[in-house]
């Protein structure tokens, strides 16, 4: 039987660009280029490796995001995923983590799945909570923050490198996993992959396709409210010296002056 893998990928503003907020205190997406969150490339990579090891597998990449988010799906398809689902709806603007997890869970159920793969965190919100929320909503095991993952005989196993210990984890499918940037470099799309991606199916769903009421998502439906956002004041220019043989001593004097020594 075919192993159905769904990879959740987020379309995010480029971290090297000048990211900021719009007037309604949501992320300003007009001024900065977007891309597939780099940390989700690791999720796509692990899904591809798991699919390679399986007799028969199908990878669907899923995103919830604006029109441009299709770019993120194309990138994942060109890496080798089979098909894509794009959940797009005007009423989704400003959705928070709880709302996003609701939309993703409904879309995953509608797609059908044995394994859901997420990144460790998005590179914009960086909450690192979605995988746990999805496992909770779907009622399946959570095998998260893995630096190594494999699937065999309907069981997922993985290694989680925590603060105080390294753990070896195991769960039966269906399950939700998330993988870290230690799980293995993501492949670059090949020219062939890029050409093939153009022909792969991308389904577009809106809230009504998922039986979700507009008031449960978006800025209005959010469970959290941002009251203010201020740019961090630029640091006042520091002292910079060129080492002419006394650089270490000069630095020591600075540290002593600041009472660190």
């Amino acid at each position, binding site marked *: 039987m075919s192993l159905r893998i769904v990879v959740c990928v987020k379309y995010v503003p480029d971290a090297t660009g000048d990211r900021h907020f719009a007037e309604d205190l949501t992320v300003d997406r007009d001024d900065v280029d977007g891309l597939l969150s780099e940390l989700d490339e690791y999720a796509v990579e692990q899904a591809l490796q798991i699919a390679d090891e399986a007799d028969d597998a199908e990878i669907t990449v899923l995103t919830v995001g604006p029109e441009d988010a299709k770019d993120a799906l194309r990138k994942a398809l060109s890496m080798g995923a089979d098909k894509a689902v794009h959940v797009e709806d005007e009423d989704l603007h400003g959705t928070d983590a709880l709302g996003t997890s609701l939309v993703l869970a409904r879309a995953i159920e509608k797609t059908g799945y044995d394994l859901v793969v997420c990144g460790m965190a998005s590179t914009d919100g960086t*909450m690192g909570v979605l995988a746990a929320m999805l496992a909770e909503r779907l009622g399946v095991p959570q*095998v998260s923050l893995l630096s190594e993952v494999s699937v065999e005989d309907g069981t997922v196993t993985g290694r989680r*490198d925590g603060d105080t*210990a390294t753990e070896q984890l195991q769960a039966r499918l269906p*399950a939700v996993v998330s993988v870290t940037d230690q799980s293995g470099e993501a492949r670059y799309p090949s020219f062939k992959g890029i050409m093939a991606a153009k022909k792969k199916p991308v389904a577009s769903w809106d809230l009504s396709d998922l039986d979700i009421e507009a008031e449960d998502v978006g800025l209005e439906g959010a469970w959290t409210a941002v009251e203010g956002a201020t740019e*961090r004041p630029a*640091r006042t220019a520091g002292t910079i010296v060129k080492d002419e043989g006394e650089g270490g001593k000069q630095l020591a004097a600075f540290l002593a002056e600041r009472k660190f020594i």
Partner: protein
Amino acid sequence: MAEVLVFVDHVDGAVRKPTLELLTLARRIGEPVAVSLGSGAENTAPALAEHGAVRVLTAEAPEFADYLVVPKVDAVQAAFEAVSPSAVLFPSSAEGKEIAARLAVRIGSGIITDAVDLEAGEEGPVATQSVFAAAFTTRSRVSRGTPVITVKPNSAAVEAAPAAGAVEALEVSFSEKATGTKVVARTPRESTGRPDLTEAAIVVSGGRGVGGAENFPVVEALADSLGAAVGASRAAVDAGWYPHTNQVGQTGKTVSPQLYIAAGISGAIQHRAGMQTSKTIVAVNKDAEAPIFDLVDYGVVGDLFEVVPQLTEEVKTRKG
């Protein structure tokens, strides 16, 4: 006064510092009730009482160690139902965030992660977050349900405030899902004897400029002279020169020490995301154009193999 649930992060009964910071913040918005789970839970009570916990709810069961996250979610939910708190606070560890995330879904409440400050507000607690690699500071609150908030380490100075800290056993019945993810093996991390990276007052980090694992002792020697923790950039970690657990940055640890010293680190946005909120920043880099110099209070343009050992010697001499 309303009670605030505080999740306790401890290792065999030894309470970790971020939890004491949480208790300090919790007192601004209510009376802290601590939830302490797993082996050694009862032993956490004296430290928690010392820092303001009016009650300490404890539960010990093998499930907490044998299965991932969900047994603790069941326990915190039981505490939530027993206490009806006005907010639930967690340390922003990987586990803390995951428990918080699942609890938020279960109780239908909004969640704020990685708060760096917390104040009482007219419509509930207001959390400060530092976002977009610390380029922006936001103020947010939970607008639906009971606020579930995770707080980053080093967000508050720990203050003692003795309270009753009465220990009460927490009744937990585990859900069917609690045993879904088995922990089949656990290898505790070996202690280096140096301070914990996220808790240290001083952090000395090395990057690609260190040039090899065999040179990291240069960084370690400076750290030891200052009583500091050792950090590393992802380039140094990926090259296998230093363990991943010491990585500072977006996908490593976020540190916010009094003093951060970067040696041979260029200052990429993903690195800055993990150290930009340090109080004093110092860098040694041979490239005067390195972006890290935009952040520093003091920078030395030079070869780290000249500057850092000289600094280490000078620190030792000055400390006597």
